[in-house]
């Protein structure tokens, strides 16, 4: 009969919570609507990509990916990411170091300017580079005379990608580095480390996970960018088509299964990004909980808990 008191205790707890909780029926209606919404807007689109990609069989799927033009688009997308992500990481580290570790005038303006690319439509971002480097643009004549191609060529795609992914790493690192302060770096310098050693052994370990977070978000956007790249690329099959542009081309050629095959790789990238992101967040909350556990006895030994009656 041990179950009965437990049951009654549970009932009593529920009754005590009645004022601050919805009736179960409303609760389950709300949960059902939320689940339905997620099913239509999250699960179905994802499952649909995979289902359509394999709609003509596994052999056709591999054939679509092995198609020379699709393969070229995969290579170009990787190339663009390999160039633009490290450059933006370098910028993010430099900007975060300057902004978080030093005081100077115009700092908040600088932060606003760094966020600027997020509030510009990707198409407008592409247009900016056309205005600069296109044939009718500011440097168009000069570039043409020297036979340098930026618009409708790979450099333009890289520039447009760098523009739209510009804020990701900096934005992740600035609050993180501000929160850690400068005490540890000052200590390292006092102990004789040079600037680079301080950065490598003191700063970098403390921002490592935030940096990875920023890099994967930056990379996902770099590989998936469509609007800005579409404006500057010229859509030359095999030469200036990234994967998202290849998806559009195949779709317009009424080759939906092939379009979905290329799209499935991008969807997998999204899932991978999401997985790493979730793992990092989970890790952070776990470490936070651990740190709190450790801190409490330390506080006690310092006398903070001594007022408690023994």
């Amino acid at each position, binding site marked *: 009969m041990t179950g009965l008191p437990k049951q009654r205790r549970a009932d009593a707890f529920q009754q005590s919570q009645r004022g601050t909780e919805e009736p179960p029926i409303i609760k389950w209606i*709300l*949960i059902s609507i939320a689940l339905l919404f997620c099913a239509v807007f999250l699960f179905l689109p994802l499952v649909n990509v995979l289902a359509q990609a394999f709609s003509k069989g596994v052999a056709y799927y591999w054939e679509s990916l092995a198609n020379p033009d699709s393969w070229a688009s995969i290579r170009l997308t990787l190339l663009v990411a390999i160039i633009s992500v490290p450059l933006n990481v370098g*910028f993010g580290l430099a900007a975060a170091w300057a902004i978080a570790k030093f005081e100077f005038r115009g700092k908040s303006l600088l932060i606003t300017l760094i966020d600027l690319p997020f509030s510009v439509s990707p198409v*407008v971002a592409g*247009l900016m580079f056309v205005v600069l480097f296109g044939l009718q643009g500011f440097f168009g004549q000069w570039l043409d005379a020297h036979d340098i191609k930026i618009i409708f060529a790979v450099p333009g795609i890289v520039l447009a990608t760098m523009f739209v992914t510009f804020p990701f790493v900096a934005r992740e690192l600035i609050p993180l580095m501000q929160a850690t302060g400068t005490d540890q770096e000052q200590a390292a310098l006092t102990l004789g480390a040079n600037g680079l050693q301080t950065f490598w052994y003191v700063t970098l370990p403390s921002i490592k996970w935030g940096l990875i977070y920023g890099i994967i978000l930056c990379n996902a956007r770099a590989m998936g960018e469509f609007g800005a790249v579409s404006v500057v690329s010229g859509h030359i099959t095999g030469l200036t088509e990234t994967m998202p542009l290849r998806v559009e081309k195949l779709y317009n050629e009424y080759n939906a299964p092939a379009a979905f095959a290329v799209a499935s790789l991008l969807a997998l990238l999204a899932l991978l990004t999401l997985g790493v992101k979730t793992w990092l967040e989970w890790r952070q909350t776990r470490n936070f909980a651990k740190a709190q556990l450790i801190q409490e006895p330390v506080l006690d030994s310092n006398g903070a808990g001594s007022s408690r009656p023994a």
Partner: protein
Amino acid sequence: MAQKKFNALPGFGLTLGFTLFYLSALVLIPFAGLLIRACELSWGDFWNLATTPRALAAYKLTFGASFIAAIANALFGTLLAWVLVRYEFPGRRFIDAIVDFPFALPTAVAGLTLSSLFAANGWLGRYLVPLGIKGAFTPLGVVIALTFVGMPFVVRTLQPVLQDLEREVEEAAATLGASRLRTFVSIIAPMLFPPVLTGFALAFARAIGEYGSIVFISGNRPFKTEIAPYLIVMRLEEYDYKGAIALAVVLLVFSFLLLGIINLLEQWSSRFQH
């Protein structure tokens, strides 16, 4: 300023210099280029190019669909955030993780799969189209794509606020005899309003500039399902740079207005919490 005096860290000049150089080269100079070209247009030219009937139809669709999608996001986002924070149910952690899926999925893939879902022979379209709900190649399709793209904004702005909400206030209201509905309307809703509005504005701002997902689902028919960013691309393909720039300026002005409003909203809602 006292901190500056004792700051012995090296690399300030180097990192700030690199930051300013990189920012100028990649963002400020392209921006200035567009603005200079825009200023070269006379006011009359600009007005004519920016307010052609086709452009007006495109603005109407862009802003109208973005507004409706942001409203949908505010409603469902609030519901989703509430359910994720307050209730325990199977799959909760999984849904919490996958809410960011629209941020991670390239927009082209989102547009492709949504248009295929809502097409007449798609998984959803085959049931919805006979009911008269056409989700592909219609303005409704634009709303659907924008709702997908903006979904995480309201949820992610609201979640931390909901988590920090003090249950004691609700308990006090219940003790004083308020019904749950009354508590929600007069205690909880006013506290949630600023973050929901912020999330709404973020989703709205994102939707106005969105291009990738719409191209696939709208059909891009002039005067009917053509959005403003698509019209910019059309103008560029016709080598009508002036027309493209005029439209871009209109979009930029709206984006910056919204950015200003979002900043004010964030200040307002953070004041609410302290």
